């Protein structure tokens, strides 16, 4: 490729990961280009989530390196340091703060972005944090979640929890956003809304890696697609290249209509 290394936000080189006897990731090489949406597709159990887990410090690969902003994420970087470096992640099972209100769920990551991994000021009142309050309120309004933002997040439907988690990541304006099946379990209507939203942030130039089963979503969003099967990347290219790729059709897309 003609791209210099500088155009890559994230570079995964020779990453291997085994669970007991299972080779979950084998010699993964992947470059994520700045400002692009990179989709990872593949059958269940292919290792897609595992790959993202190695990028956020949840799992340490057995070998290989993952470079982000000049740093190797696999070299004893803590999850919070990785987030502070600029990577936010939407999990496959929504990870929110059920005991807090929807608004507070969005405020928390904004505090992390503004104040860093730790700040101590117990005498400052929450109501005085107008900047963050406004930012969170505006974002929730944009996402159509502004109404009832003071309600418990724990009572939200699964689809809405997913959307909330997306909001929690977006408010951090991450350099790299990792999305693990952001529309799974959503009704068609909500899926479409999420696609619209993701398209909107695509225009903002935020770099994204998205794992998605819904081919409709993948082909309408992705600039590049990598296909993962049994822990290995079997194909990579533009959406058009992938659509026509024989190996992909055989291994994954199969009878699926495109």
């Amino acid at each position, binding site marked *: 490729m003609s791209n210099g290394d500088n155009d890559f936000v994230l570079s995964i080189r020779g990453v291997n990961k085994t669970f007991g006897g299972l080779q979950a990731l084998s010699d993964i090489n992947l470059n994520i280009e700045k400002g692009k949406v990179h989709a990872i597709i593949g059958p269940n159990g292919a290792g897609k989530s595992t790959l993202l887990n190695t990028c956020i410090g949840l799992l340490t690969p057995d070998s290989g390196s993952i470079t982000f902003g000049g740093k190797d994420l696999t070299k004893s970087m803590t999850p919070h340091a990785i987030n502070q470096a600029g990577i936010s992640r939407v999990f496959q099972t929504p990870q929110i703060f059920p005991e807090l209100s929807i608004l507070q769920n969005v405020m928390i990551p904004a505090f992390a972005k503004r104040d860093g991994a730790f700040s101590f000021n117990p005498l400052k009142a*929450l109501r005085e944090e107008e900047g963050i309050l406004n930012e969170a309120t505006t974002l929730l309004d944009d996402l159509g979640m502004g109404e009832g933002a003071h309600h418990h997040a724990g009572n939200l439907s699964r689809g809405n929890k997913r959307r909330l988690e997306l909001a929690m990541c977006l408010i951090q304006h991450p350099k790299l956003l990792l999305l693990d099946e952001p529309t799974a379990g959503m009704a068609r209507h909500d899926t479409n809304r999420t696609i619209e939203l993701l398209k909107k942030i695509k225009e903002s130039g935020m770099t994204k890696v998205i794992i998605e089963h819904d081919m409709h979503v993948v082909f309408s969003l992705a600039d590049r697609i990598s296909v993962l099967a049994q822990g290995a990347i079997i194909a990579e290219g533009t959406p058009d290249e992938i659509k026509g790729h024989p190996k992909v059709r055989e291994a994954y897309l199969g009878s699926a209509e495109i």
Partner: protein
Amino acid sequence: MHQIITPSSRGKDLSILLIFIAVVLTAPLWGSLIGAGYPDLLQKFAIFGLFAIGYNLLFGLTGYLSFGHAAFLGVGSYVTVWSFKLLSMNVIPAVMFAVVFSGIFALVIGFLSLRRSGIYFSILTLAFAQMSYNLAYSVLTPITNGETGLRVLRDDPRVIDNALGVTLEGSPLGDLFGITLTGYAGFYFCAAMLILGFWLSLKIFRSPFGMKLVAIKSNQTRMEYTGFNPRPYLLSAFVISGMYAGLAGSLMAITDPLAGAERMQWTASGEVVLMTILGGLGTLFGPILGAATIKYFENIFSAINLQVLENTFAFMPEWLGGIMVTITRPFVGEGWHLTLGVLFMLIIIFMPGGLIEGFRRLSRLFGGKKAASETPAAESEGGVK
């Protein structure tokens, strides 16, 4: 469900604080209505209230259950008596040293215990507290005076007092610039500390810091992948609650200048857990309510002896009275903890949210309007639309 941390409005917080101050300062009045109108008991309410308010900032907000907070209570007491012995009977340096030392002690124990979470954290705190208790009881006798307990003596150096020409008259008691802190003076000093402690707790409940502590309790993993390092937050909460415990221990030694190792026993650590849960874990008023309730009933039940029981049932035929005395005997006097156990079980089974939840249900039952103002929606008025 009730929201713990709310932005609230400044006016609302001010009225909460003012009502609290009014209730505390008029304690001798309402106390006498329920048979608690004397300083010894009222100052117990205040001291254990402080202990529980501080403990709640750790357990209630972060969910980290410490079984060792009595250790800080003990440190606060010992440091206070030493301040009396070495420096002055003035309580101001005594309280300040007690809070600082218990804070340092909490920093060390918290740093080590917080390497683990869940049950392992609880066991570590318990182990450290029992270690402290045993050290105080035996090895550290030169500092703690072991079994006998540390007390103020007539020929102690008291360098500041001596330099100022203040001499000890009568029995050694805490002193606030000439005011001897016994009786109601002692209570009002404790009350002032309680108000200060409550104010700080209210501040923390309304702060982003408090919200982050609840977020750690709610989903610590999410916190980490959101860019927060939970460890220093937990350690801060641990140290703050340790300082509250140290302050409570200091007040115990001020109102009764004696410090014994039994103050560090695991039963004392357990008591503050009970108080907090009984009153309402993670709520603003619950812990102090729980503390006062337990101390109030302890006062009643532990004072009942065989004689009192026999008199109570004297109106019955002798055989029936005898049976009644036999049945009730284990629940009173030394056996009051049995009553506490039953009380605790009943409340937790029927009101898992503690006494505060009970009050909330009552107010919903009797005043529809009042209840409406308790919903989370209304709670977040002010900062949020």
